[in-house]
């Protein structure tokens, strides 16, 4: 197959009937199988279901008037419910769980015509930044299989980077789309909280969890996001607003300086010490490119953003401790084989069913909500969360997007931070603020470090202004090649 393995490329080829969905899906499935030993990017591969969906898509395409993404293979992070297919959250707790319903975003992407090829590996219950916390084993980074792919949507990022699927869904609670996107050299968008429904997304931290997209480029992200976004009456935090049609916005014509008038805020706090020199250099070069495209950089301040990590690691575990209470062995999921009484059933089931990082966060969350500690931790963190939101609101009054590195460093070696959760948490320093504030953010490939590992630049924007982020990313990608580079061994 010679068609580009992108969402836009495949969709065009499918609609023009140059290829069939069965062909595209078969290629995807074959690549997944071939890469599985090295990458372990998938938890479930659904040959039968995918091909059945592909055949159905081909029928629809043949009839004409097929939906925009008809026949395009897609993978979902294994935290999103898929009717009839296992949804494990990469946890022993749900190792055999088959959902009876589709998540809202899954249903919408099905309605848009995509064919689901499988479910991607992840950190257990989306808790982690390295994909090492999976009951089904770690995921390799396609650029170097001894490195982490990032997390928690590590399987989705690796699958897109290795061109196993043109795009995959992810979820972003503290950077879980953007950080693995950066580390695997793909484009990842976390839309505004409320743009995509959380119904059917297994909750980690409800006020942070955001469905997102990982793809090769901004245009593909726009295509998938257009299909995913939309109001859902079953999610009380879903926002009822007219669809934006990001794809159409990107496809309008532009001159030599397409970003003229775009004010790019550079927070001092994002460029201080702590960023690896290769990362800083790559981001500086990307900023120069944005300026060349017409953008104007302005210095801004985010004085409270330094508290984002502690605030996040109080609030997210607090919500997680409550959200994960339903996994009690009573109605579904893992249940201890033997127990003395009810308390023993709970203790054994949860001790056996959850991995160490999940337990750590449940314990932290339980602690910060406990009588006597609530005010000092949970309440204080909520107050600081508001201050951080105010900082961003002030900053975004002076600029249209806020730019900086997505991560302080490129992907580290598997196993090196497992024993040091704090170091692991600090790697989320640039991504958690978008979840604390609900703002949209995108990570785009902008270079490589000395070890040949990808580096990502993050752009954050105003609430529901994904269009500006996608547009800036798209213009940048029209002018650069970083997003087109394929890890060796994964070319087609």
């Amino acid at each position, binding site marked *: 197959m010679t068609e580009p393995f992108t969402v836009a490329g495949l969709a065009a080829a499918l609609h023009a009937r140059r290829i069939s969905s069965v062909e595209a899906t078969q290629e995807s499935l074959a690549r997944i199988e071939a890469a599985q030993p090295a990458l372990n990017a998938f938890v479930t591969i659904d040959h039968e279901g995918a091909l059945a969906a592909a055949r159905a898509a081909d029928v629809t395409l043949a009839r004409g008037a097929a939906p925009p993404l008809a026949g395009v293979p897609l993978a979902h992070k294994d935290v*999103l*419910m898929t009717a009839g297919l296992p*949804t494990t*959250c990469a946890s022993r707790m*749900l190792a055999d*769980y088959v*959902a*009876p*319903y589709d*998540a809202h975003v899954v249903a919408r992407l099905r309605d848009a015509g995509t064919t689901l090829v499988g479910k991607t590996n992840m950190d257990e219950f989306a808790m982690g930044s390295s994909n090492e916390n999976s009951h089904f084993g770690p995921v390799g980074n396609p650029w170097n299989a001894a490195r982490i792919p990032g997390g928690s949507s590590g399987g989705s990022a690796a699958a897109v980077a290795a061109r196993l699927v043109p795009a995959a869904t992810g979820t972003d609670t503290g950077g879980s789309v953007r950080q693995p996107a950066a580390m695997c050299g793909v484009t990842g968008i976390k839309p505004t909280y409320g743009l995509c429904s*959380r*119904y*059917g*997304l*297994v*909750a980690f*931290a*409800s*006020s942070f969890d955001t469905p997102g997209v990982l793809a090769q480029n901004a245009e593909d992200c726009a295509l998938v996001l257009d299909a995913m976004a939309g109001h859902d*009456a*079953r*999610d*009380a*935090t879903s926002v009822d607003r007219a669809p934006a049609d990001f794809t159409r916005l990107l496809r309008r014509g532009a001159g030599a300086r397409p970003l003229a008038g775009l004010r790019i805020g550079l927070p001092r706090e994002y460029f201080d010490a702590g960023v690896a020199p290769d990362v800083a250099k790559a981001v500086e070069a990307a900023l120069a490119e944005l300026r060349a495209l017409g953008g104007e950089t302005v210095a801004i301040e985010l004085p409270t953003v330094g508290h984002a990590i502690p605030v996040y690691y109080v609030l997210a575990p*607090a*919500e997680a*401790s*409550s959200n*994960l*209470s*339903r*996994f*009690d062995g*009573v*109605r*579904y999921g893992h249940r201890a084989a033997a127990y003395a009484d*009810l308390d023993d059933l*709970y203790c054994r089931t949860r001790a056996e069913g959850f991995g160490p990082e999940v337990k750590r966060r449940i314990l932290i969350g*339980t602690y910060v*909500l*406990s*009588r006597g500690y*609530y005010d000092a931790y*949970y309440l204080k963190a909520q107050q600081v969360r508001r201050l951080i939101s105010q900082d961003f609101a002030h900053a975004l009054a002076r600029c249209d997007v806020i730019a900086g590195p997505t991560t302080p460093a490129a992907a580290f070696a598997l196993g090196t931070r497992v024993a040091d959760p704090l170091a692991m948490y600090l790697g989320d320093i640039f991504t958690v603020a978008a979840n604390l504030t609900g703002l949209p953010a995108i990570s785009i490939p902008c270079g490589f470090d000395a070890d040949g590992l990808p580096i990502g630049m993050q752009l954050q924007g105003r609430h529901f202004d994904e269009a500006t982020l996608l547009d800036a990313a798209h213009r940048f990608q029209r002018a650069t090649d970083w997003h087109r580079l394929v890890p060796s061994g994964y070319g087609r």
Partner: protein
Amino acid sequence: MSRAGHARIGWEVVVGIETHVQLSTASKMFSGASTAFGAAPNVNACAVDLALPGVLPVPNRGAIERALAFGLAIGGTINRESVFARKNYFYPDLPKGYQISQYERPIVTGGALSIASDDGERSIRLTRAHLEEDAGKSLHEGLPQEAEAAVGRDGSGIDLNRAGTPLLEIVSEPDLRSAAEAAAYARRLHAFVTWIGICDGNLQEGSFRCDANVSVRREGAPLGTRCEIKNLNSFRFLELAIDYEARRQIELIEDGGSVRQETRLYDAGRNETRPMRSKEDAQDYRYFPDPDLPPLAIDEDWIERVRTSLPELPDAVRARLVTEHGITHYDAQQLTASRELAEYYERAAAALPAHDAAGFKLVANWVLGEFSAARNRDDVPIERAPVAPALLADILRHVTDGTISVSAAKTLFNEMWNAALRGATAGNVIGIVSGLVETGSATASTSSSVDAMIESLGLRQVSDVGELEALVDAVIAAQSAVVAEFRGGREKAFNALVGQVMKASRGKANPGRVSALLKAKLERSG
């Protein structure tokens, strides 16, 4: 009014009540599943009620509106923004591992409910009312066969039909001063929530459940340590339980002990309360705002819409009956025991030809007397009473215009009641009866049926002077000895003569006219 057992000299009993009122919505607080009672286990439990991974709650507008109706009707403050919070604990019938409730910011704060007390109405302050969801039920015995086959004889079953049912928890201030007052409060609250139509009031099905916080103190002393008695679902048990608990606490203190703050359960079989858990092993529920639910915002328009949909409230009806109908305060309280009874009274009163105090009093007496007795005897709901308000008014009109006597009216009432009841139960509603059960516009047909019934039962009162004179003359002639006694100064003999005339008329003579005639004749001929 109190069962004086505990009301020992020098002691004061202090009670506050928390009531779980099940709101009468068709679907649950946060899901679309049905709230119907009595379905097979887990039939009315959807993905949200089962807390499947990934599901989310969405608040039920109907439940919110009922809470608003309560808050407005009770004179409380509607909080423009209230917050749903999670109450975290593990229990098999709590599927999410937390209950969604309201904690720091409830939808309603304040308000007051008046209760009947020895010295008229007394106002009991409310602390708050908040929305929450009910838990499911754990079944430890009496499992359906297939369930028992699955879990064994020692196993437990879980029924999540009730899980997620909307509740309004109404908390009173510790303003109640006896078990009897607490029961009066609970009864009045029950009448109130059914009156405004937010709860079906079914005690057997658990639609109205009370917890009582009880403490005692020496008069003038600060509040004592309280115990909470859980899950009292009858007014009688509520009163007995508080009575027992107050006595227990007083005896404990008088014996030199002190009350431990704890939760207790009432055992109706033994009429005693027993400890369930103490404050020390009380759980830490780790309340925090539910991140799945934005703060509940209530705007003025919504409040106004609910306000205009409220019925006239019981206090207002009581006041109106006293001032406009000249009904006694006690009767007004009785007539407003339920909205249905009050409406029955009002419709009967409105159907009277003359709207005067005597007529209203007559209707009130009949509604609280003959009507309530028949209704209780046959256990029929007011809205399906065999004698409709217009018919009652028609019967009473025949009393006031002298057509029938009061005792004949009672016979007539019961005959018509029973005929309609038999017809209704037999499913064989014959012509005359269908006229009886009609209400309102059916005055003409009821009227003709009342007249027909009076005739067929021979209840018409004899008021014709000629007929009566003949009877009186005959009695005077026949009872010369009694006439002589009367003339000799024995006043009582007069009544005996009236009785004789009545007897001769087989009860149909108009007693007033008989007296007048008899008196005139005896005086004249004396």
